[in-house]
């Protein structure tokens, strides 16, 4: 049942970039090291230390921004390609300089969009939706405060390994209208950034973080805009895609209910934005603070760094390394190989290596749809079971294409058995067939058998000729009984041909 309100969602996503070193020093950018072991004077913010920009981080960020169809550093009153760093000032123990190097008024990218697929329907496919990107900018991450949770009031410890690791902040327009759309957006960002090698986007490890800005529009004919809008709530502490969905659903309902209680006061123009934390075990949002009390960050240009000028040559170099983006790939798999929208979705979601595997098999087999079906039938379950990635799989695309060609006439069970032997024993398809007790198909012998079956089943033949289609199955069954292991589709074909002659 549809809700009596429209949900409006904008997302702020932070992703950690997959650089070798941190954003402004040469410490390793690596998760899971012993506390305070990946630090130096620069990321510790020691007196006198200075930041120096990591070009790899900037290039990865450029790649992401181009994939998000953003304008690159084109700002009014500035040279083309001009972007700069700013300091965001606030005090916190996990931020040793007590300012964060970020980007304020001239971010390196802005005004882009991302096409996402929503409302999955295996038959009709997907509806594409454009989500606008306000801006994407680079900044340094803070460390981690580790609070004593024993309740005995122990000291808070600070781990500064994460301090100074590169973060890309992507801010969307409030263009999403359901938890499903929000999740689809996050999934598309994750897929794209992983395939581009920009970020591993592991929400559990914090390499992808998301804050959701949510409010609801309640249709009302007598309102100037035709609806009333509730105040914005920014939900933080979302640690999985599932919790993003749950939090949005909960918060939208809560806002609607509050509006019902206070239809005059609980409106966006009456209350400023508030921040809420998502309590996952309890399944509810907890309002934390009013934004009006929020800090004044006193942004100003970072004097320790020089502005960055992005040239056309640099942009071209980055573009040259991007490869095909997911949405283009989905389209191409459908037009070039005749895949269904849902098959294209499945393959693209598994990443570029899987798509490459599919394409190689399809080219050799000469039938993309069949290649996709065979890979879905046998390769995906095997990968699952073996906990392997496609590039670790012992059956190469060429070998699998060969398998598909040689087992085209087998029934499903036989194919499964033969593939199992190929995979486990590493033998040829021919040998695996023999090992599975499958004889080579002798078509002329089978044809003789079909002729004999037609001769022996006069009644069924008569019924068939009288229009009873199912009578044919009795004849097929008769042939199968006398030819154990014969491929069902071949037998059918021969029976059809022979019946036509009668």
């Amino acid at each position, binding site marked *: 049942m549809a809700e009596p309100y429209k949900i409006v969602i904008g997302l702020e996503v932070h992703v950690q970039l997959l650089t070798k070193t941190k954003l402004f020093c040469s410490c390793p950018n690596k998760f899971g090291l012993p506390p305070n072991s990946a630090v130096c004077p620069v990321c510790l913010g020691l007196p*006198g230390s200075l930041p*120096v920009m990591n070009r790899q981080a900037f290039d990865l960020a450029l790649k992401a921004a181009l994939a998000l169809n953003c304008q690159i550093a084109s700002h009014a009153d500035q040279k083309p390609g001009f972007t700069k760093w700013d300091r965001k000032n606030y005090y916190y123990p996990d931020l040793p300089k*007590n300012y964060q190097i970020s980007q304020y008024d001239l971010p390196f990218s802005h005004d882009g969009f991302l096409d996402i697929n929503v409302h999955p329907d295996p038959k009709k496919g997907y509806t594409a939706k454009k989500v606008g990107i306000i801006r994407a900018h680079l900044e340094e991450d803070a460390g981690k405060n580790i609070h004593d949770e024993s309740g005995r009031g122990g000291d808070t410890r600070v781990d500064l390994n994460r301090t100074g690791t590169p973060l890309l902040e992507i801010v969307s327009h409030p263009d999403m209208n359901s938890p499903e759309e929000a999740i689809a957006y996050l999934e598309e960002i994750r897929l794209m950034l992983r395939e581009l090698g920009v970020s591993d986007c592991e929400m559990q490890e914090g390499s992808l973080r998301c804050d959701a800005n949510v409010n609801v529009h309640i249709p009302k004919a007598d309102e100037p805009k035709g609806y009333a809008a509730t105040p914005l709530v920014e939900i933080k502490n979302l640690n999985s895609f599932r919790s993003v969905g749950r939090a949005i659903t909960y918060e939208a309902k809560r806002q609607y209910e509050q509006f019902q209680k206070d239809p005059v006061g609980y409106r966006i123009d009456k209350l400023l934005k508030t921040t809420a934390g998502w309590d996952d075990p309890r399944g509810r949002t907890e309002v934390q603070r009013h934004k009006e009390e929020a800090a004044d960050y006193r942004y100003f240009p970072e004097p320790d760094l020089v502005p960055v000028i992005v040239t056309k040559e640099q942009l071209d170099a980055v573009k040259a390394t991007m490869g095909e983006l997911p949405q283009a790939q989905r389209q191409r798999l459908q037009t070039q190989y005749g895949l269904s929208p849902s098959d294209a979705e499945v393959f693209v979601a598994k990443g570029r290596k899987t798509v490459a595997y599919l394409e190689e098999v399809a080219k050799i087999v000469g039938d993309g749809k069949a290649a996709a079906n065979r890979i879905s039938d046998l390769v995906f379950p095997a990968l699952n079971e073996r906990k392997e990635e496609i590039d670790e799989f012992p059956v190469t695309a060429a070998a699998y294409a060969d398998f598909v060609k040689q087992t085209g006439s087998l029934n499903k069970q036989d194919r499964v058995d033969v593939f199992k032997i190929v995979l486990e024993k590493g033998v040829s398809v021919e040998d695996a067939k023999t090992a599975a007790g499958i004889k080579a198909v002798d078509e002329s012998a089978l044809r003789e058998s079909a002729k004999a079956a037609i001769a022996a089943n006069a009644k069924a033949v008569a019924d068939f000729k009288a229009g009873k289609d199912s009578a044919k199955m009795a004849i097929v069954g008769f042939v199968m009984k006398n030819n154990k292991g014969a491929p069902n589709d071949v037998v059918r074909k021969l029976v059809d041909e022979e019946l036509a002659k009668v």
Partner: protein
Amino acid sequence: MSLTEKTAAELLALQAAGKASAVEITDAFLASIADRDQKVQAFMHVEGANAKAVAAVIDAKRKSGAKLGALAGVPIAIKDVLCTKGIPTTCSSKILEGFVPPYDATVVARLKAADAILIGKTNMDEFAMGSSTENSAYKTTRNPWDPERIPGGSSGGSAAAVAACLAPVSLGTDTGGSIRQPASLCGIVGIKPTYGRVSRYGMIAFASSLDQIGPFTHDVYDNALLMEIISGFDPHDATSVNQPVPAYTKTLNDKVEGLRIGVPKEFFGEGLDSEVEAAIRTALKEYEKLGAKLIDVSLPHSSYAVSVYYIVATAEASSNLARFDGMHYGHRTKQKADLIGTYAKSRGEAFGKEVQRRIMLGTYALSSGYKDAYYLKALKVRRLIKNDFDAAFEKCDVIMGPTAPTAAFKKGEKSDNPLAMYLSDIYTISCNLAGIAGLSIPCGFTKTNLPIGLQLLSPPFDEERMLRVARMYEAATDWHTKRPTV
């Protein structure tokens, strides 16, 4: 003439001729410090045994015939704003009491590589904020020419150390005049290099877009020598400029032909002491005698320089000094408090009044609602000040005027009046705002025997010519040979 009155060049020559060893030189300066620093109070920390050990290694190297660095066996004092590995670095602030950096500033590393002997760390105005060195949380440095007077600031300790012959050379930093003004008041040579000429890595920042490190020396040759060592691109400082460093000492005595000296009327207005003005005019005449042409130039926006400076510098300082919060190093309050309380108490207890005043000024200038009217407007005027210099340098090669409006003033004379104190930098500040180079050389004394300094300002990265211009005057005069009796 004792060893301690000699220049670095002379000390290098003595060693090369086998007439003095690095150990003897170091001992002489350590003895001078032991003898005179109770009076001068220039040092925060003295490297006794370590300095001698380094000197012994250099002597051994020399004996073995190994190649020696350009400053081998020459002791150097370092302003306590520069990080020195394993040696306390306080910025003369209580908040950094006990802080020992785990790394060397780039300039310190370069001096060590040149076989210089780090002899100690010098007193300064806390976090380089001041013009008299009275804002040190630890001690008040005296002017070696008159112990009742201040040595200037903020690099007062480094200037006094050289003037009083406690070290032959030293390093200071200059954000608004903190090298040139004390050099002027102490009768020595001090340079503020072009912004980006010398790496700032390891210099504890006051105002990042204005700070530069530079040497104090008895004469121009030593200054050129030090500049050759400390200048140049540093991959650890993104604002250092990748441009070759000229061999300053090689061309130093080449006369500048057809020299055009710009004399800005704005540097000779109200507030300039008449004795200082007379000395500057005499120096300019000397240049005319040497063949230079004096040209009237104008720096119309220089009257805004002090205002712009106290917005830009304090804004940056309010952020640069945020890290001193008692959490990770330095002073932390003993009082029990929550997080915000711990920040406030630690900083309130350990920052001096002037530092607190500037942090508040800068925080205000950057706050929402005020940023446009103060910080952003100041940046616009800063651009106009830079344009003034660009226009002036179309007409002249170097600009000259007084370094400071007066000779050294008395201790306590301006400490209760921050504004009067701020005006001691009136002629030096615009150079930092414009990012150009500046230098002060001795050009005379007042009737009461206090040194007066002549300021030279040059276009960016034109230190080579500026040093030659300074050397022309020095070669014709003997002010640089005077030493005070301490």
